[in-house]
């Protein structure tokens, strides 16, 4: 039967053993894309959804109308946070490999997303992240130790042992709780933004979703509600080319960009180089200004590449060429910002090495401290009796008796 099938099956350009091939990626030269005023009608800027906003050129210089006004100190700060994100991830990955946490997900290659966008938002703006936005928590002030304790499910775990590693939350930093179910945060962000508008506040919301997850219903609900109520929200699609083993073509990315998904609802879309911190910062600020000014939602597609495995449970060598990342035409976000600063005379290889060393030490120190609060195998341990708390605002009788029963049986 299969041989006469006329069904179209998307195929990635390269599988294990093949030459990496990114010819399908439409690239625009740095500086070549117009920057329209923030109150431009969606229909008059549809181009932005298939072009690629880039600021950093191949010679590491910032180009064109999207070049944001960030001074060297600001860029150094950005570099620091991106590097911290990576160093943190590397360490946690190792730690998982040593069997000391149960699971981990890294943001390798995508650090510019969380840091660039985090920098362009105000502290009062609310973030609804996916599991690859740990950089947002870090940038917004959640300590390394707190992040690590979450992953350890130890006595200082913000989640009290209830959540998988990486499912952080922080009310004080205005970053929402991460869900295991893909995409569910997207309509939350829209509802949050609607509430801000209803209350007459000028805070905006932002949310992140992966390319693969755009196929979920919540993506559609979020876009529809955002368009209908012109909610002040930034909806980001992090297109890192892969879901788990399926490439972005299985989410409908073969024919149009993800940035174009909202056009049919009148939501402007901007496709941006997701490894170019300056471009990311600029488009995010543009979208934030538009939202704050009453212009409604913007959909931003960040074109990047998932440099590592999907999670510690994954083995990407099974489904894509091992060296695909090295052929990715948009490079590495940290390396590019570093080179930009060096080219501009505000940074050096030596400073970078020192920073990296410092950050490694910082992460190591945090890890040592985190372990004081317990690990999977060594105490102190969280009290399991707490597992009956927070199911409801007040613990009802049946949960109290289950708690008692649990304590009796376990003792």
């Amino acid at each position, binding site marked *: 039967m299969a041989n006469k099938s006329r069904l179209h099956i998307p195929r990635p350009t390269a599988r294990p053993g093949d030459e990496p091939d990114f010819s399908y990626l439409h690239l625009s030269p740095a500086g070549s894309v117009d920057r329209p005023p923030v109150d431009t009608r969606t229909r008059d800027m549809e181009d932005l959804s298939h072009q690629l906003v880039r600021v950093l050129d191949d010679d590491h210089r910032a180009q064109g109308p999207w070049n944001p006004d960030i001074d060297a100190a600001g860029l150094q700060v950005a570099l620091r946070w991106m590097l911290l994100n990576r160093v943190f991830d590397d360490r946690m990955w190792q730690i998982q490999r040593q069997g000391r946490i149960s699971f981990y997900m890294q943001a390798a290659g995508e650090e510019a997303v969380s840091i660039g966008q985090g920098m362009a938002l105000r502290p009062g703006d*609310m973030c609804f992240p996916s599991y690859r936005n740990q950089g947002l928590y870090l940038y917004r002030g959640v300590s390394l130790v707190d992040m690590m304790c979450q992953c350890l499910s130890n006595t200082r775990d913000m989640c009290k042992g209830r959540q998988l590693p990486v499912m952080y939350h922080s009310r004080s930093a205005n970053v929402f709780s991460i869900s295991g179910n893909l995409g569910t945060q997207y309509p939350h962000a829209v509802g949050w933004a609607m509430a801000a508008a209803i209350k007459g506040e000028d805070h905006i919301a932002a949310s992140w979703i992966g390319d693969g997850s755009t196929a979920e219903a919540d993506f559609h609900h979020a876009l529809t509600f955002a368009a209908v109520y012109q909610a002040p929200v930034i909806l980001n699609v992090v297109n890192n080319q892969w879901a788990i083993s399926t490439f972005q073509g299985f989410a409908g990315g073969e024919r149009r960009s993800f940035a174009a998904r909202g056009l049919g609802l009148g939501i402007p879309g901007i496709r941006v180089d997701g490894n170019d911190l300056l471009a990311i910062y600029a488009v995010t600020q543009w979208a934030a200004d538009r939202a704050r000014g009453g212009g409604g939602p913007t959909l931003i597609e960040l074109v990047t590449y998932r440099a590592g495995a999907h999670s510690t449970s994954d083995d990407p060598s099974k489904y894509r060429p091992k060296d695909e990342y090295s052929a990715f035409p948009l490079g590495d976000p940290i390396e590019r910002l570093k080179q930009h600063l060096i080219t501009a005379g505000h940074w050096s290889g030596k400073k970078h090495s020192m920073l990296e060393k410092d950050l490694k030490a910082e992460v190591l120190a945090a890890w040592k401290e985190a372990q004081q609060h317990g690990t999977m195998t060594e105490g102190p341990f969280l009290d399991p009796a707490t597992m009956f708390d927070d199911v409801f605002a007040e613990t009802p009788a049946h949960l109290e008796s289950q708690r008692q029963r649990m304590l009796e049986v376990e003792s």
Partner: protein
Amino acid sequence: MAQMNMIEAIRSALDVVMEKDSNVVVLGEDIGYFGGVFRCTEGLQQKYGEHRVIDAPIAEGGIIGAAIGMGVNGLRPVAEIQFADYIYPGFDQVVSELARLRYRSCGEFFSPVTIRTPCGGGIRGGQTHSQSPEAIFAHVSGIRIVMPSNPYDAKGLLISSIESDDPVIFFEPKRIYHGPFDGDPDKPAVSWASHPKGEVPEDWYTVPLGTADVVRPGTELTIVTYGTLVHVAEAAADETGVDAEIIDVRTIAPLDVSTLTESVCKTGRCLIAHEATQFCGYGGELTATIQKHCFYHLEVPILRVAGWDTPYPHAFEWQYFPGKKRMAAGIREVMEGG
């Protein structure tokens, strides 16, 4: 005290709470300008404006998802799902998000959404306008489930639900919106006008969540039920002449166990009735809990009277609906056994 039907009582609850707390917003399909297909929100948009009484796109998942986000941002959203049968497209948002947000974030985030939705059959609505899915949600930890059987409770429980910091699904048995219904479709319609539970204060009051109500005391048999079937149970008890104690569960989850078990330990016989499909319905939970606590007092097995294990058929709703005959037969079975 005013005389209200259930629709008026629900509207009054919304009105009182919206008046009191400017963070309460109402959203749903056709609930704004139009006032809702069952008129529960009639007049509210005129009074509170389009920004607090919000017409929504036809996307139950979107309505619940957006309501969650609103709740996280300090509002107290009341979402109407036009029919309980249409809550399923929003199922993931209810189960994976609304019910678990407080738990997973250790209370840092929560969203006090109340979902109001008409349930149950008896209005010739066919299989997609007649369902009672309370058991499905009762299995989900972290969400309160309520189903009132009369206007007084409806208003008091709805105010409690909206004011609760926990998410609540508030099921409204639509067959009794306009009057109590004893299960006999051939009888002339009865209104709430002359019913004591149709007397409803105009002002704020609450009926606490988690408390069952002994609707009628009795000695020979306990009937545990809720929603429309409370009235059917009364009629069936009258018909059989059995001195039944009738308990209206009112809050499906978390359940007020002791009111139920005290009664059954006293009477020694128990009939459980609900309109939903029997298999794996809420009657199973009630049976398991009651037999556990009252085993040594039970003289006969607990009997369930419920909807059949089929979809709700349009033409046979009175054969499907556990009406007076079936309830009476159940009462007789329980009384004769042992």
